[in-house]
C-alpha cells in the first residue's frame, strides 16, 4: 500500500437547481476537480449515488457519467451505501490508488433530489431503512433519528436547546460557505419554533433535500510530489468503514452508533492518531441529534457530552473542537450521494488554508465521518497536511 494524496477539489453551488440535471451537476463538479488538480486525464472513477433510479429515473450511472465527462472507455463504478455512498466511493478510489492499480482516480458523488415531489423524495430516502419492518409501519427518517434523540435525552439529559444549538452553529458556518444551499444564520428561537416534523425534531433540526455533486482527484503522494505540487499536500492517513443492523430496533444501544465507533477505531489506528489529534471534523449531521451522537462515537466527547459541547461553543469555528465548518449537511445541503465527498473537500480546503472567512487557525489533521441510514453504515477518513 502506498500513500495517497487529495490533489483536486470540485464543487458547485448546491440547492434546488431546476436548470441542472444529474449528469450536468456531476460533469461540472468533476471538471472543476480535474482543473483544480491540473490533471489532463483520469484512470478510473467511483461515483457515490444513492438512488439515481428513484430520484431521477436513471441508473447505469457509470456509463452515463463516463460518456458526459468524455472519459470513456475508462472503468467507472457507481457506489451505493445510502447517505454514505460518497464516503464509500472515496474509500474505494483511495484503495485503487493505494494498491498501485491506478495512478489518478476521481472519487465523486451526486444526487438529483428535486425532480420528484417531496413525498416521493421522502419515500426514496426511506428505502435506506428496513422497508418491511420500519418503513411499512410508518416510520420516517426524521422519525428514526427522533427516536434516537428521545432515548439520548432520557439517558443523558440532552436538551432541546442543545439540539437547536447544533443547527444554529452549522448555519453560522454555512453562512460563510458560498456553495451552501442555505448560506444564512438562524436564531435559536427560530429553530425551536420551526415546524414539527417528528417529535422532538423540528424542521430546522433536519438537513434539507438538495441537488448537488462533488468530486475529488486522488493520486499517489509520489506522483503528487512530482507533478501536482503547487498546493499544500493533503494526504489520506486513515480509512475505516463499518456496518450495523439495518433496523434501529435491532441494536442493543439506541443512544450510540456502533458502525461509527468501529470505522473510527480502524481509521485512527491506521493513521496512528487519536481524537485529541484532530484539528477539525466534518460529521454526518443529517439531523441535529446525529451530530451529537457522531461526535461522541468518534471519541471527541464522552457519551452524553456531545450536546453540551455544541451549547458551550466547543464545536464552533473558534472552539477547541471545530465541527462542520462547512455548514454541515444542515446548512450546506445534503444531496445524499455527494455529501461524503463534500466533507473531504471541506477538510482539504481547510488544511490547504483556502477556506476564506470560515478558515480555522492552521489545522494539520482533519476527520470526515459519513453515515448511511440510521447508522447502518459509516465511513471515517483522516487527512493530514504535510
Amino acid at each position, binding site marked *: 500500500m502506498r500513500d495517497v494524496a487529495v490533489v483536486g477539489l470540485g464543487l458547485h453551488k448546491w440547492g434546488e437547481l431546476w436548470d441542472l440535471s444529474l449528469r450536468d451537476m456531476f460533469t461540472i463538479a468533476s471538471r472543476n476537480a480535474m482543473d483544480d488538480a491540473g490533471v489532463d486525464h483520469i484512470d478510473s472513477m467511483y461515483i457515490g449515488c444513492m438512488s439515481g433510479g428513484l430520484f431521477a429515473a436513471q441508473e447505469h450511472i457509470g456509463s452515463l457519467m463516463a460518456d458526459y465527462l468524455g472519459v470513456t472507455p475508462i472503468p467507472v463504478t457507481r457506489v451505493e451505501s445510502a447517505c454514505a455512498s460518497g464516503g464509500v466511493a472515496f474509500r474505494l478510489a483511495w484503495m485503487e490508488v493505494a494498491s498501485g492499480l491506478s495512478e489518478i482516480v476521481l472519487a465523486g458523488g451526486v444526487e438529483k433530489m428535486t425532480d420528484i415531489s417531496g413525498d416521493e423524495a421522502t419515500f426514496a430516502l426511506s428505502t435506506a431503512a428496513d422497508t*418491511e419492518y420500519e418503513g*411499512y409501519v*410508518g*416510520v*420516517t427518517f426524521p422519525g428514526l433519528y427522533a*427516536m434516537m434523540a428521545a432515548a439520548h435525552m432520557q439517558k443523558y439529559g440532552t436538551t432541546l436547546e442543545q439540539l437547536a444549538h447544533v443547527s444554529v452553529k452549522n448555519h453560522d458556518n454555512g453562512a460563510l460557505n458560498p456553495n451552501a444551499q442555505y448560506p444564512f444564520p438562524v436564531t435559536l428561537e427560530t429553530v425551536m419554533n420551526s415546524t414539527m416534523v*417528528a417529535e422532538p425534531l423540528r424542521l430546522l433540526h433536519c438537513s434539507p433535500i438538495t441537488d448537488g455533486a462533488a468530486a475529488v482527484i486522488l493520486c499517489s503522494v509520489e506522483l503528487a510530489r512530482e507533478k501536482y505540487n503547487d498546493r499544500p499536500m493533503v494526504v489520506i492517513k486513515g480509512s475505516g468503514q463499518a456496518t450495523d443492523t439495518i433496523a*434501529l430496533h*435491532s441494536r442493543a444501544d439506541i443512544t450510540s452508533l456502533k458502525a461509527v465507533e468501529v470505522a473510527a477505531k480502524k481509521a485512527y489506528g491506521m493513521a496512528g492518531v487519536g481524537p485529541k489529534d484532530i484539528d477539525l471534523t466534518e460529521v454526518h449531521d443529517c439531523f441535529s441529534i446525529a451530530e451529537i451522537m457522531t461526535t461522541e462515537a468518534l471519541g471527541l466527547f464522552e457519551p452524553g457530552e456531545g450536546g453540551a459541547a455544541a451549547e458551550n461553543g466547543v464545536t464552533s469555528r473558534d472552539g477547541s473542537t471545530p465541527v462542520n465548518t462547512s455548514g454541515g449537511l444542515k446548512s450546506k445541503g445534503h444531496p445524499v450521494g455527494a455529501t461524503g465527498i463534500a466533507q473531504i473537500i471541506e477538510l482539504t480546503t481547510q488544511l490547504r488554508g483556502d477556506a476564506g472567512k470560515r478558515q480555522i487557525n492552521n489545522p494539520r489533521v482533519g476527520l470526515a465521518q459519513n453515515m448511511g441510514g440510521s447508522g447502518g453504515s459509516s465511513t471515517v477518513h483522516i487527512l493530514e497536511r504535510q
Partner: protein
Amino acid sequence: MKIRSPRYHRETPRRFRLEAEKTKSGKIFFPPRKYYENGEKAEPIRLAESGKVVTYTVIHTAPAEHSDLTPYAIAIVELDDGARITSQIADVDTSKVSIGMRVKIEFRKIRTEGDEGLLCYGYKVVPE
C-alpha cells in the same frame, strides 16, 4: 411505488402471526433469518404480545400511505420476551406517550397500497 401483492403476502407469517425464531443462545430474531452466525440453530417461537416503550416519536410529516393518520406515535417496543419491534401506537393521546409505558400488540390495518388499493394489515400496539 407500485408493489405487487406477492411482496405483501410473503411477510404475513411475521405480520399476522408474529412468527420469530430463538437461537440456542437465547437471542430472538424477528423476522427470522435464513442463516445465523456460525451456523447456530434456532427454533420457531411466537413473539410475546406485551411489552414496554423503549423510545418513541410522534410523526407530523408522514409518507403518503400514512399521511391520513398524522400526528401518530411510533415506538420501538421491547416485548416481554426481550425482542424489539418498531410499531405504531394506536388508540392513544400522543401527548400521553412516555418511555417505559406498557403496551400490547393488536392486529390492525396498517395502510392502503398502490392504485389497486391493496389493504395491508399487521401489528400495532395500544396502551395495555
